[in-house]
């Protein structure tokens, strides 16, 4: 099985290399963390907020830490973006799913390896963007500890699995509605606003943060980012709490996804099925 997955990933990577320019543009399209970095660094430099005497809550991080946080957010997004629903929709509408059903493995793996191959293809460009940023903004440079990198990347892939499972469930709706991606788009809203993409969760008002932490969204973005920047380490209780929440969501979504896949497949009527 592992060998099959490796071969699939390598072929998908070769396939993706043909669309290098497009993939590089995708990297650039994820400029949001850098915009928000600008906003938060400017804000925290202004001296407003509790300590500075503005009367409101203090800023949770220092300007440099805001910069690092948003760089980490950028990194996490590069490795946890999921787009399988669009491909799946296309495969269902055009009846291409039939070919994948003929293979002696769940078509799911085809999509997983496509994502891994795409991440490999964008990696060189991603490193260039990152290097460019650190040249422009040398104060934000820091060397994360080896454990932060290891644990961080492990968590990024856990986050990737969770996002994949979530989108997989939405993708299965394609068996019933042809435009399931329109429904999935709605789940993008809480993702954008609750994941920590626009503001670190520590800056949220207390009740909003509590609510956000019950949803899976902070765990797919701000959680791995905080691990990568060393805010959450192996000794912090938040780490285990986070993994527990992720595991619970992941298990639930897998059950739902599998159920929908079985049910949906019976309805599938593409050519050859």
């Amino acid at each position, binding site marked *: 099985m592992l060998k099959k997955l490796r071969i699939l990933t390598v072929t998908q990577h070769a396939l993706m290399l043909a669309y290098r320019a497009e993939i590089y543009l995708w990297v650039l399209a994820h400029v949001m963390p850098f915009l928000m970095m*600008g906003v938060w660094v400017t804000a925290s430099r202004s001296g407003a907020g509790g300590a500075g005497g503005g009367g409101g809550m203090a800023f949770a991080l220092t300007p440099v830490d805001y910069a690092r946080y948003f760089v980490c957010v950028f990194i996490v997004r590069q490795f946890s973006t999921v787009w399988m629903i669009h491909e799946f929709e296309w495969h269902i509408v055009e009846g291409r799913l039939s070919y994948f059903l003929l293979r002696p493995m769940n078509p799911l793996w085809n999509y997983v390896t496509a994502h891994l191959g795409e991440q490999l293809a964008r990696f060189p460009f991603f490193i260039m963007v990152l290097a460019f940023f650190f040249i422009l903004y040398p104060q934000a440079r820091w060397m994360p500890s080896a454990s932060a990198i290891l644990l961080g990347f492990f968590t990024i892939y856990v986050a990737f699995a969770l996002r994949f499972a979530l989108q997989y469930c939405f993708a299965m709706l394609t068996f019933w509605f042809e435009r399931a991606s329109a429904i999935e788009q709605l789940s993008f*809203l809480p993702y954008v606003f609750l994941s920590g993409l626009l503001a670190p969760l520590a800056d949220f008002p207390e009740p909003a943060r509590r609510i956000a932490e019950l949803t899976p969204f902070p765990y797919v973005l701000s959680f791995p980012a905080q691990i990568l920047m060393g805010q959450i380490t192996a000794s912090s209780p938040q780490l285990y709490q986070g993994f527990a929440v992720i595991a619970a969501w992941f298990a639930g979504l897998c059950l739902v996804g599998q159920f929908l896949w079985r049910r949906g497949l019976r309805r599938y009527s593409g050519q050859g099925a």
Partner: protein
Amino acid sequence: MGIFPRRILRIMSAFWFTSLAAEMEYRVNFLVAAINSLGQLAGTLFTLNILYRKGYHFAGWSWHEALLVVGLFTLLDGMASTLLSPNLSRIVQHVQNGTLDFILLKPLDPQFQLSTRNMSPWGFPNVVFALVLLVYAGMQVPLPAAAYALGIIPMILSGIILYTLWFAVATTTIWFTKVWNATEVLRSFLEAGKYPMSAYPVAYQFFFTFILPVAFLTTVPAEVMRGQHSAAFILIEAAVALTLFVVTRCFWKFALRSYTSASS
């Protein structure tokens, strides 16, 4: 293109009527779009509120004035999804499928045809919410009614600037064929217009003024509405809009020369 204004108007109304009729097939999508834009707006206000409740404010912008910028951004966003994106995304298809030939053959300016052929009602919810927000924020600032009348001029100019940016990116399709992602890149950079320029560090402000003129899309019209150096701002913005329009036009003409159609 102002030589036959009446003919132009007739063609445009025919274009828009047919595309509206076509889009009405997808009424559920309209509902999704409405929920989506309401959610977007709520989320943006929530994020802005996180900053402002700390006692911080973008230099020179009170809470309600910042809302004005959000409102203008939402308005432009709605206009873009109604008028721009359904047309400009199709340029890519035309070049890929070689159907651009049909457009070039018609006795009507191709840039005009490509830019006005379609319209989709998906941006309407954004426009409505934006107007509500603009009126509310304007009453709180408070702005006189004349400010809105004055604000219409720079808003039209912003619309022109936005159009030229999209059209210039879409024009590059003629050489690169697959530039759908390039318009996504443009879109993600335009998001910067949600906040007034003073929210960003100086380097960003420089970039968004001189390289990618996002500053002129929302911040400048809001400044005009607030009555700060209105005349000067309008003049500068008009100059920017006119320059960009002429440059884009020449760029398009130039690109057409390198177009090798499907059959030639």
